[in-house]
């Protein structure tokens, strides 16, 4: 067995030594995060600087963000398997890995975030069907299972594992049913991305977050799904770009990227128009009915009206417009700027919908609430990044993640 190659055939990988060095560096960061995680589990949430006003803070933002960014997985799956954009099959592996990383991180963060981790399963066993968080937990877990199933065939394509006939068969069969899982994933994702939007939107005690409802869902429900579908692919593109920069190789053909970018661009534009409509209705109808003007929500030096401009115009309309124009997509600089802006935009949206919600004072005798994370919170938030880098590195090194790699980088 020792002689069997671990690295996929027909591709070049860096030396073991170099890889080990890189992994050691990332692992060091991971260990730091794990240390902080155990500190929090052992000593409790007093290790954070959250407080009674900021019950939701950095972690919940990180959670919402990674899930939004991991949205590339479900949307790419949807485009590949259901819409039939076959070209995107070239990035689907990578999208699934990103999704897997994002969703497993989200679940991990949730187990750190709760005050009583050993009771975490109550959310399933004693579920309250009215709670958006219940919906999130169920869909998140189910979709994570789906992502795992989607990830397994890729793992089994490792040359050494692929030699086992049983596993080989399994891979083959799983590939056959993958569209079903992809469809399931799309359905689940639609709900939990939405539920995450619902988490803030249903808070009728928090006029900054609260939105009018369509049937049982607040507007944010749809906006979150939409924005995840719009910006998730941008994060996939960003991930590919970064991998290409680090490995100094072209891994995916540009036409594939451009197709994804184009679809993403149209999603962003439609999303941001909807978001603008939502914001206007909220600012001029919903909030005033509760005695608030728009500027009441932006009266702090940190949370000023500039934030709204950045989110909607700079990180919404601008990337959207770039990506829907051919010239924008074909210009490498513009393309990547748009991708980065879109990723920032969706992250900012999640930040606002978590942290600004907590910060806004509701009584005139209250002041804006402030919060600064502790190192333990930062470390545990960076932990998934390190973990993600490790998973991507291992996957890239040992699995045929990019089908076009061989063609683009022929070995003589």
């Amino acid at each position, binding site marked *: 067995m020792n002689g069997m190659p671990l690295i996929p055939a027909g591709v070049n990988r860096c030396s073991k030594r170099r890889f080990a060095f890189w992994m050691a560096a990332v692992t060091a960061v991971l260990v730091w995060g794990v240390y902080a995680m155990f500190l929090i589990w052992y000593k409790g949430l007093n290790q954070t600087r959250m407080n009674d006003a900021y019950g939701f803070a950095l972690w919940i933002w990180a959670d919402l963000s990674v899930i939004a960014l991991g949205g590339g997985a479900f949307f790419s799956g949807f485009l590949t398997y259901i819409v039939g954009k076959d070209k995107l099959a070239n990035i689907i592996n990578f999208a699934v890995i990103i999704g897997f990383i994002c969703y497993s991180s989200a679940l991990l963060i949730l187990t750190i975030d709760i005050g009583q981790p*050993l*009771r975490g399963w*109550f959310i399933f066993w004693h579920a309250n069907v009215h709670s958006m968080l219940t919906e999130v937990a169920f869909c998140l877990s189910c979709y994570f299972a789906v992502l795992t199933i989607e990830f397994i065939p890729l793992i089994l394509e490792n040359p050494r594992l692929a030699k086992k006939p049983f596993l080989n068969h399994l891979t083959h069969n799983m590939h056959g049913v993958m569209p079903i899982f992809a469809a399931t994933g799309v359905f689940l994702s639609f709900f939990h991305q939405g539920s995450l939007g619902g988490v803030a939107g249903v808070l009728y005690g928090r006029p900054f977050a609260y939105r009018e409802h369509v049937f049982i869902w607040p507007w944010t429900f749809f906006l979150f799904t939409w924005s995840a579908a719009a910006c998730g692919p941008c994060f996939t593109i960003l991930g590919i770009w970064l991998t290409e920069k680090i490995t100094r190789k072209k891994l995916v053909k540009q036409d594939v990227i451009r197709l994804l970018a184009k679809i993403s661009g149209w999603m962003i534009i439609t999303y941001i128009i909807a978001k603008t409509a939502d914001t206007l209705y909220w600012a001029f109808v919903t909030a005033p009915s509760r005695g608030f003007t728009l500027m009441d929500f932006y009266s702090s030096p940190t949370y000023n009206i500039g934030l709204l401009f950045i989110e909607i115009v700079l990180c919404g309309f601008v990337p959207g417009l770039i990506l829907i124009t051919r010239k924008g997509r074909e210009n490498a600089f513009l393309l990547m700027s748009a991708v980065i802006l879109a990723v920032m935009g969706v992250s900012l949206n999640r930040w606002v919908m978590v942290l600004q919600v907590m910060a806004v004072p509701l009584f005139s005798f209250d002041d804006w609430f402030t919060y600064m994370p502790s190192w333990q919170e930062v470390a545990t938030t960076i932990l998934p990044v390190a973990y993600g880098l490790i998973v991507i590195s291992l996957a890239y090194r040992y699995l045929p993640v990019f089908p076009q790699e061989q063609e683009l980088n022929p070995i003589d």
Partner: protein
Amino acid sequence: MKINRRNFLTYTTAAALGGAAGTLLTPVPWKLMDDAAIWTQNWPWTPVPEAGPVSYKPSICTLCPGGCGIYVRFSGNRPVKIEGMKEHPVNKGALCPMGLSGLQYLYGPDRVRSPLKREGKRGEGKWKKITWDEALAAVTEKLASLRKLEEPQSVACITGMEGGTLPSLIGRFLTVYGSPNLMRQATAQDAGAQAVFLTQGKQGTPGFDIENADFILSFGSGMLDGWGAPGRMSRLFGARNTAQRFIQIEPRLSDTAASANRWIGINPGTEGALALGLAHIIVKESLYNKHFVETFTFGFNDWNDEAGVAHTGFKALLEGYGPENVSRITGIQEALIKSLAREFAGSSRPIAINGRGKGALPGGMNETLAVHALNALMGNINKTGGLYVIPELTYAKWPDLGMDGIASRGMRQPRCDGAGGDLFPNSRFLLNRVPTLINTTKDGSPVEALLVVDANPMYTLPDTAATRKAFERIPFIVSFSSYMDETASYADYILPDHSPLERYQDVPAPAGMSHQVISLAVPVIKPLYDTRHTGDAFIHMAKALGGFIEEAFPWNGYEAFLEDTLQGHWRILKKKGVVEIIETPAASDRFTFNTASAKYEFYPTARAGTGKRDSDVLPAYAPAILDGDEKTFNLILIPCDSIRMAGDHMASSPFMTKTVDDTVLKKQMTLVEINPATALKLNLEEGGKALLKTPKGKASVLIHLYEGIMPGLIAMPRGLGHTAYSEYLANKGTNINELMGPIEDPASGLDMAWGIRAQLFRV
């Protein structure tokens, strides 16, 4: 099938998978998952309070001189809560935060659990546990040796302000031992008592019938900030009717001022001038009670004495206090002074009250006399809605004292605080003078041994640095405190008393109450620790000292002494816990005064004497001369009180401190209040750090901007900055006594300070 190194791993994996699959079909994962959650629900370190039958035991709260009735709720044999007693005449069910959190004092980490002897340097905190026999023997030995040296007067004792028979017992002990130096820290109530003595010739405390007054004019008394019996005052406020007007005069919008019908800002320390200014209008416009003034008072008009010398009367004094002048002094508009005077005089039962904040500082005697004079002008003396005198209780006669030569000689020595001497004949104790007197004595200390009972002078006396210096010179200090307070932690021996809920204590004349109420605090539980009633300790020491001292204490313990002393009351007190004496003086007795003139004296003849001019005798406005020069110290620091904080010798309980806003205390820093206008001048911001300097000391503070304080003033909460005690009580902010010193009232020797000059820098 052969097992070898290569396939071992595969078989193990198979077995493990089988095991895992099988385990899922057993209760193990599910039961453990459930039990792990249940474990978190019953963590061994989360306490489970033991249940027991519920019962209530009545007693009296003795944490302050208010004497409110309480019920202690028990679960089994554990007291678990203190609630107000509805049927008690003082508080009628109401309690203050201190009383409600009383159990924290009982159970807290600050209790002294056995007698202690100092091991290291003073105040170092190194103690040796000793037995009661050793502790009492050590103190007795010291006392005996001082008697042997014929210096019994060098023993001094400081008691608390709670009153009752314990100070009398200690007084008897000191007398027969040979020391006149029984002291306590004088409060506004003592200033009131002296004013009553000067004007009415009676020994007793002033009682204010706020229940029935229809116009309450408070010269800065923090009636809802802990003045008098807090339970009573809060309840009265809640129950007041709309016809009752309540005017608060002070330079800061206190919680009392905020609850008043009207708050009038005044230049600090000028309350006496305002009282005279109001009197001026009332007299000028003939609004006073002429029948009373003409029939029952002395010194209103000018008069000639027996020697034919012409004297100025009160009326003539008032001429100097026209509205223009008073407006200039007090900063209150003339029109407002006039309308206030008319409103006061136009009410049917107006009452004027003074004593700033909780009344921790006595204030100037002239100011108190001026305010009392307002009541007298309206004839509101010893009648419904007016100012009563609660006479000192006459206890049962104790066996006569036999005194030996040492004791008699000792008792003839002047008191170490100068009270009752030539300088201050009308004052009974002047503890505020003692630190300076000790510090200015050339060699040694006039006090060789100091016994401290229910008091914490090292915290409560103004000018902490001077007090500490004085205490350093006292060779032998014994504290009888139940708690490791500042004085106890500086003592040589601690002979811990039971805590309030563990001991007998009689509580007469609740502060400010309009009639006599004697309550008996009874022990509701057996003492938790190795403590002893201080009364028992003194009786024990008396017996050990022998001779006349032993003979003076025929009782076998404090309880027997109490029973003997209270006599008729004892049975009722044991049964009901309270004796209420409502004496409605007959119309003829009501205006019987024991002064030289047998009248109410606007001109207190007791103050007259050789070399005293009329202006010294009459209550002229005599402002306190604040320490510090006005140029350097361009602001004025005043203390402010809150009912959420203990102001006396006790530290606030953890729960009291927990209620304190973060605009008062933040981490270990006191916030001082200044007006935003003042802040602007000094370039200070909300929450900013600043250095507060006074002629007495300096402190690092935080700034709180408060529109409700007069520009130019700094208000600092009293009751913070304890340095002893556990981490739950200690090192919270600054003790204002570190920054303020006493100012001796030339008229009484009492501390007339109400503030100090100060400066504030941004840091």
